[in-house]
């Protein structure tokens, strides 16, 4: 009897072990979906592994609604899963960018001689991922909602006027504001010609490329009418569209198939996309990993295919053959609050100049592995893209850049003493806002805190660093109109890929109509900027150069903000990723969306 029990026990144990081994092997297979799995075949034969892009991001998307999405992380979903009329992508020569029709059938057709009326034909066979058709009504509805005066979407001004200025669109969107006149939708330059043709009327002359770029933007992407309306509140002032997968449908090269909020997003290739033959990943997986150290560890373990290095991780990989170093369109700077009633000295240009010349940008660059930037137009801004002429390479633009990275302690002290005397102040305490998520502003802030005290005198100058979450910092800075005492200078990153080809947009946030962070208010500057947006100055490279020089000179002379460093991109790609470009391209970066996987190199 005892032996029988032993046998039963031994058999049970063996069965359990077998089961657990089985479970283990299943787990191991499931650990890494896609990557590295081959479907049959001997080594050396043609592999049929699923091509998967795996990346880790620090934060998840906050919304999928193109009218309100403002974070770069929101844009990633939009790029992959929502199509637009046109799509910008790396050209097949691997060196340039091309604009191709995506949901549009062809390039926009000019309907008048001036280039102010454009017809865009929508493809007749394109659909949302749930099978609903996409046509001219889809775009009319999307643009109307994007500009809706009651919804007051954050991206309304971009829809109205970015690469092109649509007739009466800005006025329509802003009509609810004080002193604004009512504008009917019928007066806005967005019309339906037929079920598949859309007409756009602009205020001034534009090129077909301008129109295509405008309808390549995230803000002008379509929304699904049924879901948008279903999410609308009673007063029609907000919609829940795109807050989760139930309130969103895809129409891009990939379909958003799975979303575990704050953890993982999965996109699956859409074979019906008009540009399906230009994309290669069968699946795209984004994992949300807030800690940069963990992301790095994941890259080293082969769990993700790409990582962007920062000042802490770059030194370790500075000679790694996989490293790609690129210039970027990002300038770190400190915004200046001129309307703080407790600190009127910030209205004094000499005080602002004192701060400008007291910034040791060379040391910032050394500490952050970035480029010292006593200027505001980045190195990827083109004055003539056809000839490859960059603004920063122009001798006139170089002449605007002060020596020694704009660091001149003696001059700074002179300006400081003069401004303090005029203001009747013996000592000043400057409240500096920085965010607690990044190191860049923290490093610069702490260095300035000590260095500026040395320059201006410990008994006369003090910086109080206020470290807060990014969203709180942004809200505090944007609330300058209602809470003007919130700060004096606030760290900020300017980062806009569109400014490579449209560099004048760099200066737009300092105009009265478009200032959000900045409270700079100068009608002469506004007039200068209006010139830059006009067709006369936009389309002629010589005039474009002339107006950019004038804008940057005005910017630096009046110290509209305090530029510090131009960011340098340090990127590591896994060995098996085949990029579609030879080098970094403005507005496309490394064209990751259009990259491929060399399955023979998979580990």
């Amino acid at each position, binding site marked *: 009897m005892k032996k029988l029990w032993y046998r039963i026990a031994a058999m049970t144990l063996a069965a359990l072990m077998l089961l657990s081994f089985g479970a283990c092997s299943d787990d191991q297979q499931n650990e890494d979906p896609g990557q590295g799995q081959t479907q049959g075949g001997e080594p050396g034969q043609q592999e049929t592994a699923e091509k998967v892009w795996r990346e880790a991001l620090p934060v998840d998307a906050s919304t999928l609604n193109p009218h309100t999405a403002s974070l770069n992380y929101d844009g990633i979903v939009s790029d992959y899963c929502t199509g637009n009329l046109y799509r910008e992508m790396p050209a097949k020569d691997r060196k340039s960018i091309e604009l191709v029709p995506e949901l549009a059938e062809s390039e926009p057709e000019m309907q008048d001689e001036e280039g102010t009326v454009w017809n865009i034909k929508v493809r007749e066979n394109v659909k949302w991922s749930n099978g609903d058709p996409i046509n001219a009504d889809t775009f009319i509805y999307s643009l109307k909602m994007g500009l809706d005066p009651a919804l007051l979407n954050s991206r309304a001004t971009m829809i109205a006027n970015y690469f092109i200025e649509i007739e009466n669109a800005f006025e329509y969107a802003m009509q609810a504001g004080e002193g604004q006149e009512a504008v009917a939708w019928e007066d806005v330059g967005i019309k339906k010609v037929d079920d598949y043709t859309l007409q756009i009327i602009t205020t001034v002359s534009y090129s077909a490329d301008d129109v295509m770029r405008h309808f390549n933007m995230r803000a002008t992407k379509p929304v699904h009418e049924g879901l948008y309306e279903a999410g609308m509140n009673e007063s029609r002032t907000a919609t829940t569209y795109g807050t989760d997968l139930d309130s969103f449908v895809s129409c891009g090269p990939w379909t958003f198939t799975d979303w575990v909020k704050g953890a993982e997003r999965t996109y699956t290739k859409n074979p019906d996309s008009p540009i399906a033959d230009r994309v290669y990943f069968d699946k795209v997986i984004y994992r949300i990993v807030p800690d940069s150290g963990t992301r790095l560890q994941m890259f080293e373990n082969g769990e993700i295919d790409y990582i962007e290095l920062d*000042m802490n991780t770059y030194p*370790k990989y500075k*000679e*790694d053959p*996989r490293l790609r170093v690129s210039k970027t369109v990002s300038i770190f700077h400190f915004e200046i609050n001129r309307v703080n009633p407790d600190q009127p000295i910030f209205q004094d240009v000499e005080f602002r100049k004192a701060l400008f010349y007291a910034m040791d940008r060379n040391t910032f660059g050394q500490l952050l592995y970035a480029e010292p930037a006593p200027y505001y137009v980045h190195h990827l801004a083109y004055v003539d893209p056809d000839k490859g002429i960059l603004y920063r390479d122009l001798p006139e633009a170089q002449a605007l850049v002060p020596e020694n990275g704009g660091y001149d302690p003696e001059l700074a002290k002179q300006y400081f003493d003069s401004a303090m005397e005029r203001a009747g102040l013996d000592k000043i305490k400057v409240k500096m806002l920085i965010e*607690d998520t990044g190191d860049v502003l923290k490093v610069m802030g*702490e260095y300035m*805190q000590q260095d500026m005290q040395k320059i201006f005198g410990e008994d006369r100058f003090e910086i109080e660093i206020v470290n807060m979450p990014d969203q709180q910092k942004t809200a505090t800075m944007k609330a300058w109109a209602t809470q003007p005492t919130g700060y004096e200078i606030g760290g900020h990153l300017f980062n806009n890929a569109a400014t490579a080809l449209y560099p004048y947009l760099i200066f737009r946030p300092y105009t009265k109509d478009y200032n959000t962070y900045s409270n700079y208010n100068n009608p002469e500057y506004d007039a200068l900027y209006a010139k830059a947006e006009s067709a006369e100055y936009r389309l002629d490279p010589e005039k474009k150069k002339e107006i950019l020089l004038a804008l940057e000179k005005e910017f630096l002379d009046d110290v509209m903000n305090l530029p510090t460093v131009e960011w340098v991109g340090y990127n590591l790609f896994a060995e098996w990723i085949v990029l579609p470009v030879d080098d970094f391209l403005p507005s496309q970066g490394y064209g990751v969306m259009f990259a491929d996987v060399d399955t023979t190199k998979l580990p």
Partner: protein
Amino acid sequence: MPQSLFEPAGGESLSANPFHTKPVGFFKDAFLRLKKNRASVISLGVILLIGFLAIFAPGFNEHGFNDQQPDWVNLPPRIPGLEKLGIADGGRVLTNRRTSDLNDTEKYPEGSVLEVTNRKTINGVEVADVKVNYYMMIGAEDQYFWMGTDYLGRDLFTRLFVGARISLVIAFLSVLINILIGVVYGAIAGYYGGKVDMVMMRIAEVIGSVPNIAIVTMFILFFGTGMLSVVLALVIQGWISAAQLIRAQFYRFKGREYVLAARTLGVRDATLIFRHILPNSIGPIITTAMISIPSAIFSESFLAYIGLGIKAPLVSIGVLLSDAQKTLLQLPYQTFFPAVLISALMIAFNMFANGLRDAFDPARRGEE
């Protein structure tokens, strides 16, 4: 019975036997028992040592806690003497370095390469992990940073003990305020009892029922970061446990005969509270304070860790840990030293507080 039948007991003199030992009071008894608790004595030694270092260690070298040296950022620890044993020798492993550059003396000065390992080929380029004497490599051979430097080239040894000083000041200050508020609040509630007690203790319970992290975080977000904010944040709810303890002590003692007698003689309430009843609570108060200190240090570190600590340029152990955790994998020493210090502080205070609790326990009075 006639008196003559009685005679005095004990012969000629009638007197009590004299004591041959000195009388042992409450505190002396507690001290004697504490002395016998070896763990508490060692813990006290650790606390005193860290306290000594917090006061004097920043003066042990020439570096100020905020002296920034951009040429010497993130240097590894280097300690004279120990470096010869291969410990804290200023060595650093540089990964995936091109092997073709190893003989380039401009990049790797002579003698700076200590070890080459893990040779491999990436994208057709031969690379290896190279352990170098980092101080020699960057031309800082004559420098010694005992615990290395941080992202602005600041000496981490000095910063660690200045940080410990600030963490201890925050902890002691917040505990002192908590005890003061708790004693007054608890004494009034306990002494008067009845409706006064009911209202006061319900108010305390309402304040105490809000999750601590939420209330502290919101407090600091509203009032801003800084030393005073952190101290006040630790006080918002911190006084409640002290108040409850004191109230219980007052309920225990306020009905005793000596208190009733004093009251009958017309002694004022304040005198009764602070002179006659409160001294009985000294033991529990000291014990509570000691137990609260490590949790205050931990709370300060936690707040600093989530970015709600004191403002730069001041530093605390929590700020150091918060900064260091971002580079845990690349520069582990930046986390190691503050982590060891805060662990030592927490353990020492907790063990010392345990010893004090046993020493002040009336039930164990006179115990050998």
